């Protein structure tokens, strides 16, 4: 939908005859890798947005490079729960080249991911939401507290293992 490159080649998804090849960097990933940044190529998503895996330690560097490349609009920060680990997914948009790029950062054992607020102030509320619903801690966020749930809520509702076990909750169960 929103890419200069043609839609994702589905060959990446369906297994080829032999063992799946390692996914190659797209044009953006290649450009970033050439700058000496450590990235993992994750191919394109179904719509055709390039997806890059970035480790926690490299996130700020990659983010800065992307912002300097023209990705000036932060669309969203989504928390993902893959049961074993949490992941922070950032969608960026370039108002110069009209491309969208996805950054995926696996949180460490303590569910901590560096905050992107110093680079895109727009990340503020999105990271608060991700913290609130998924329990990912954003290191360096100026004001990390709950945003959608009440401030005294227990647990992070979007986690897969979340149970409504707050004893204060009384609602009409049929």
């Amino acid at each position, binding site marked *: *939908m929103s890419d200069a490159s043609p*839609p994702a080649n589905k060959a990446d*998804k369906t297994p080829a005859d032999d063992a799946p090849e390692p996914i190659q960097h797209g044009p953006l990933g290649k450009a970033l890798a050439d700058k000496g940044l450590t990235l993992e190529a994750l191919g394109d*998503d179904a*719509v055709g947005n390039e997806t890059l895996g970035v480790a926690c330690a490299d996130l700020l560097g990659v983010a800065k490079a992307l912002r300097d490349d023209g990705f000036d*609009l932060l669309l969203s920060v989504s928390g*993902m729960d893959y049961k074993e680990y949490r992941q922070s997914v950032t969608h960026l948009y370039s108002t110069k080249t009209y491309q969208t790029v996805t950054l995926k950062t696996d949180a460490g054992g303590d569910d901590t991911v560096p905050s992107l607020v110093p680079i895109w102030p*727009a990340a503020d*509320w999105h990271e608060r939401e991700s913290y609130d619903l998924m329990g990912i801690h954003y290191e360096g966020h100026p004001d990390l507290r*709950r945003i959608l749930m009440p401030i005294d809520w227990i647990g992070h509702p979007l986690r897969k293992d979340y149970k409504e076990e707050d004893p204060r909750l009384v609602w009409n169960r049929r």
Partner: protein
Amino acid sequence: MTTASPAPELSLRDKPGFSDLQGVTVEHGLNTQDMVVNIGPQHPSTHGVLRLVTTINGEIVKDMEPVIGYLHRSKEKMAEGRSYFQYQPTIDRVEYLSSFYDHYVYVTAIEALADLKVPKRVEYIRMICMELNRITSHLLWFGTFLLDLGATSPFFYAFREREAIFKLFEDITGARMMYNYFRFGGVNADAPPGWLDDVRKVINELPFRFDEYEAIANKNPIVMDRCIGVGVTSYQDLLDYGVTGPSMRACGVAQDMRKTNPYSCYNEVEFDVPTATEGDVYARYKVRMAEMRESIRIVHQLLDNMPGGDSAELRKLEKEHAKVAEEIAAAKKRVTVAKKNEEAPNAADVAKMAEKAPELPFDYRTTGQKVNLMVFKPPAGEAFSMVESPRGMLGCYLVSDGTPKAYRVKWRGASFSNLTILPSMMIGNLYPDLMAIFGSLDIILPEVDR
């Protein structure tokens, strides 16, 4: 509201640069006291359940913090327990003023995941619905914006036109606001016969109505005084807060997904992206008013070029095709089991006939690939699809693990980001400017809280 004002912690004159406020000079000799006003959660002009904890000094806003979440209905959690089709009706409620857009991002994400082809007629119907929905959304905005400024009549006028368009929606989807109409690879049902003419009738009328609105509001000195130079934002501010949509276009940047990343069939229609450079409330007003006219222009082109034309003609065509297909089937049957006293048709002729048999073009259909909604399973993968909703970029991040239920659905609501800029626009302005500025951002709380 009944608690006493707290003691001032920070006097007005301690705050640096406070006297440089736009158009407002503060008498430093006065010993004034700050007052915290809780605007909302229930307030006539917060357009939903939003609470703005505002510190004011006299009428000047010193600080503001939006408190959201009063309308949180866990739409993202709901996706985990429901199949794709089962979840679909609930997303009408994410942004109920233009819910065709919600459906469109959701449906296109799934179509991208499952690699479904969509006929052109479907895209055209979807585009008509979406553009009409943009008009209804902007109309509601126009009415409530002027109501916030204090004018009552335009609200009713806007609702009158909105009602006419809702009637069209009711005709095609069966509902006035909660449509649940788009499907994976198609739409729920074809437009009813004569619907295209009805649409044409309504949108032919609209420009005259818009002229009336503009006669009332456009150059009204009170509207101009309250809007011009109020809530000015720079393009960099908007980027910093992730604000998109008409607010961004009011800063002179023609950022419109319909132009920059043409989805659906937007590269087949001709339209302009209205922009203004001032970046104030008035610029946003003008941009939205111009966008409604552009939407009408788009709908006119779509109506003229609709593949298959009106559904009455299409039904006739379908019937003819069905008749031919029946004849061929009968002939084929006769080839194999010829009756007594009857000459069996030549098998080669029948084959040629079958070859030449007209088939309804793919573009004319209202569903692409048939999808069994009960057991629909897109392959594992993820998609982030976006659309230019009336409020800005609306995104849906959909992760599928190959089961009938979505692993994760994340909504990127335009209002959620647009709301973040409000405090920085408000600080230093007057309290009544809040209504103009907040109104001009066109925020809808269900989309913020989801």
